[in-house]
């Protein structure tokens, strides 16, 4: 059962050297206030597990962590959007483990679901083979990968009730729903905390049993303004 805490209380649980999965996809569905607080805390030597790098151009979303040199290792599918991450990879300051995107999320799911390995055809005949073992199953070759969990999953949902049940909007579920199952400690940042009974049973994307802590982040209106500004700046709105 989830407990409501402040962003400060939750971010201070994350020690230097921790492995941290952070939800979101190029900023959408990212726990912005928790990231800001990890930056404020200067938490170091993090293993950051995120499907892609920061919002294009960096300096926003997890790009603040990479810019602050707080990341020792990055596990994901793509870093090209984040200049600090690309540069850290090029200099060798950041160890990057590239996973095909479907393999990345399936490994996290396997960790949360108690499965022993991910068996996928993706990456056969490529350098990805070097990070996996190749094995034939039922007459066809596959790559085998281990499950991927973390000390913390820091995720983002639209609403939480006081039991920690989470609901999502639009494409912001992305990695959040799966990471919610695979962190030893799961912290959910939400726009709004509502009364128990407000969320319909089928509207709940993550049951509260997965969530340890809820923190109140920006309101939906505040996020609309934040993304409005960023998207406007990048000429992405009509």
């Amino acid at each position, binding site marked *: 059962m989830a407990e409501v805490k402040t962003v400060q209380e939750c971010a201070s649980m994350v020690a230097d050297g921790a492995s941290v999965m952070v939800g979101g996809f190029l*900023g959408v569905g990212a726990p912005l206030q928790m990231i800001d607080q990890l930056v404020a805390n200067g938490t170091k030597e993090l293993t950051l597990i995120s499907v892609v790098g920061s919002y294009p151009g960096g300096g926003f979303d997890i790009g603040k962590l990479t810019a602050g040199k707080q990341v020792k290792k990055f596990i994901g599918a793509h870093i090209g959007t984040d200049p600090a991450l690309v540069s850290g990879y090029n200099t060798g300051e950041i160890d990057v483990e590239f996973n095909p*995107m*479907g393999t990345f999320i399936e490994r996290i799911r396997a960790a949360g679901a108690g499965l022993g390995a991910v068996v996928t055809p993706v990456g056969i005949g*490529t350098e990805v083979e070097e990070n996996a073992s190749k094995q034939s199953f039922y007459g066809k070759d596959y790559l085998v990968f281990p499950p991927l969990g973390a000390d913390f999953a820091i995720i983002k949902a639209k609403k939480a009730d006081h039991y920690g049940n989470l609901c999502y909007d*639009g494409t912001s579920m*992305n*990695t959040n729903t*799966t990471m919610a199952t695979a962190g030893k400690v799961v912290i959910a940042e939400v726009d709004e905390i509502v009364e128990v009974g407000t969320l319909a049973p089928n509207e709940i994307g993550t049951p509260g049993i997965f969530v340890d802590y809820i923190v109140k982040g920006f309101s939906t209106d505040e996020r609309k303004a934040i993304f*409005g500004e960023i998207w406007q700046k990048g000429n992405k709105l009509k």
Partner: protein
Amino acid sequence: MNSREIIARRIAQEFNDGEVVNLGFGMPTMAANYIPNGINVILQTENGGLRFGGAPKAGEQNPDLGNAGGEPITMLPGGSAFDLAFSFCIIRGGHVDATVLGALEVDQNGNIANWKIPGKFVPGMGGGMDLLVGAKKVVAALAHTDKAGNSKVLKSCTLPLSAAGVVKRIITDKAVFNVSSKGLELIEIAPGLTEADVKAATEADYQVATNVKTMTF
């Protein structure tokens, strides 16, 4: 018409009505603007959406609706949103009819390289490798040659592969090739070029189709 527009317009002819299509960034995404009337494709975005539309007006953005490039999108009627795990069930599970991806190099064995230039630029494979393996039809789109005029349609890719033996069609600013176990077949040539021009610009071996055509737009 510049090279990019030639490629984008030709990509737009690849689809059948009702197909589920995932378009990579750049020219493939541009192609969405040129899809013929009467052909309605269902666009998929790997971060978790089907049937999405273009950017909203300023002030109408939903901070929870973005595409795989982090750009704001709108949902079309009948559109759906889901998580990444499910999105890659769709992709890897063979439920995408066609994908068009940009490439750094392609070769006559259907190999494609588009994720890594060692020592130079390593953005990562993103969802590309899954799409290349999972989509029923893979179309590679690229400039026929690099700035120095060297062919990017090769006998054998020199860059790290994104997937082996998966490309079914190659679309460049000079030509269109079919790819099969028999190798490449030249099926279309860009307007104003001859087969000899294509030959000169192509390192790969290829057959010329008996009914080779001029690309039309």
